């Protein structure tokens, strides 16, 4: 698989005695959308943090855009280049923005770091990105405390996209949102992928959301991958007992509460 834009091979992470991630491998094609599904403690977030360099892998390789990023960046230039390849949006909308910085300033800061655009062009690009995620000028100028959770997550997405990454990691990015707001953001994500060709690594515990957003899925449990395949196949005909249990646990119309005894 040389055409993959993100390649993870034999990834492992130990925290002291405990192994959080063991032998995780997957690849993501350009403009693809891969879900990592799992419950708390499955290691899915640790995988994401290793890919963006917030945790250092104990073993294994992470390759993005053909460049190895398993070791910490050695220069400011390399650090910036990596930022231009992979970006991440976290779960908590309330801590995702600097409380003292307007969305426009936050996006512009990233543009200054990653592009050589002049002031006017930067401003135009900020407006473009705001438009892409569905925020208006007034919202872009407001302080984060004036914005709702959904609006904040849109800002976080716009800020991540400002670096023009080839890969965007969404770590439970819609989990904390109200249902009606979550739907808006999911549509924004679909629009963004269509218009920019960015690839998604979508980390979630929510199978219905995963169905809506992704093409492929890996299912993780206790730090290891238990099943993988096209999203439709895995959700329609799960093979591993754990995937079957996950599927059966989702409440839906006509759901019978599973019998425990």
């Amino acid at each position, binding site marked *: 698989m040389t055409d993959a834009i993100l390649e993870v091979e034999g990834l492992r992470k130990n925290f002291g005695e405990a192994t959080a991630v063991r032998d995780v491998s997957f690849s993501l094609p350009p403009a693809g959308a891969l879900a990592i599904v799992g*419950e*708390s403690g499955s290691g899915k977030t640790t995988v994401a943090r290793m890919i963006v360099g917030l945790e250092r892998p104990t073993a294994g390789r992470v390759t993005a855009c053909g460049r190895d990023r398993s070791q910490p960046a050695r220069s400011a230039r390399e650090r910036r280049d990596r930022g231009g390849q992979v970006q991440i949006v976290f779960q908590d909308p309330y801590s995702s923005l600097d409380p003292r910085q307007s969305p426009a300033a936050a996006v512009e800061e990233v543009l200054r770091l990653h592009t050589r655009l002049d002031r006017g062009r930067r401003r135009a690009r900020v407006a473009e990105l705001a438009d892409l995620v569905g925020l208006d000028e007034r919202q872009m100028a407001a302080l984060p405390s004036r914005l*709702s959770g*959904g*609006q904040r997550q849109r800002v976080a997405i716009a800020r991540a996209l400002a670096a023009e990454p080839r890969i965007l990691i969404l770590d439970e990015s819609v989990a904390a949102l*109200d*249902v*009606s*707001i*979550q*739907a*808006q953001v*999911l*549509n924004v994500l*679909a629009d963004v992928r269509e218009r920019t060709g960015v690839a998604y690594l979508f980390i979630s*515990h929510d*199978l*219905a*959301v995963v*169905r*809506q957003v992704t093409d492929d899925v890996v299912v993780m449990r206790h730090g290891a991958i238990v099943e993988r395949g096209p999203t*439709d196949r895995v*959700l329609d005909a799960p093979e591993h007992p754990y995937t079957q*249990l*996950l*599927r*059966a*646990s*989702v*409440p*839906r*119309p006509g*759901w*019978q*509460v*599973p*019998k*425990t*005894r």
Partner: protein
Amino acid sequence: MNDLLRISGLTVRLPLDGEMRTVLSDVSLSIAAGEAVGLVGESGSGKSMTARSIVRLLPPGALVEGTIRYRGNDVPSLRGQRLRDLRSSVSMVFQDPRAHINPVRTVGDFLTEALRVNQRVARREAEGRAVRVLDEVGVADGPRRLRQYPHELSGGLLQRVMIAAALLTEPHLLLADEPTTALDVTTQAEVMAILDELRRERGLAMLFITHDLELAAAVCDRTAVMYAGRVMEIRASALLHDHALHPYTAALAAARPSLERRAERLVTTPGRPLSAFEAPDGCPFSTRCPHVRQRCHDERPDLRPLDGGQVACVRAEELAVSHD
């Protein structure tokens, strides 16, 4: 009336940022003995506040209008022993068990405290009852659990301990405020199964608060949908998802992606959910509703009976016709 609980015209105002602000507006709801009623809404809808009004756990300075009657007693006027009786007959389970259990006391202390202090049950007897209830909620090895501290237990286990604590006072009504929201899906399913079973075995009535329409539909007989501090619709749960009476319920159902198939795009409602004090004068949903007419802005629709349920929408009949 054989209703266990009957709320009518409940309006609650709270001091927020130096002003009295409405958080619940004209809420009416009843629960029969042994019945499970779902209370669904997004943030700011007032669903938790409704539950807290029932057990008089509102923040200081709250102004309450309307009536809440539990087994015929007027709840707002209860004092002293009568109020304690209410609170042992109506138990509450919260979303985040860790925030509601003292971390430096053992599970045993937590479970038996109310019994020993309020009902003067001897320690040995109280512990025996705690172990039996733990077994009932699927926590085996009770005597060992009683000696453990909250941090030694997983979130799912701790939530079962919370449920056990709620059951120890032999309640007739359980108020469950998003009891599974902080849990994993598989743990949620286990906890829901336990709640469901308990309800049937004990003939327990339940008010189940959640943001998840489908979860409410799965475990409740009837479901009330709240928006901006008001009840928009009450309907048999089985009919709610596909035959909603109120446009807001329909919007809520449409916004949630399906587990079965992928949609090109989700059907969304513009704007964000409003709190009661932000809502417009007419129908609170009128600013976001796709079916809005002038009269929706002019008058605030009351909850009225329709098609076996209740709805607060002036256009409910015509919309229901056009859906089918």
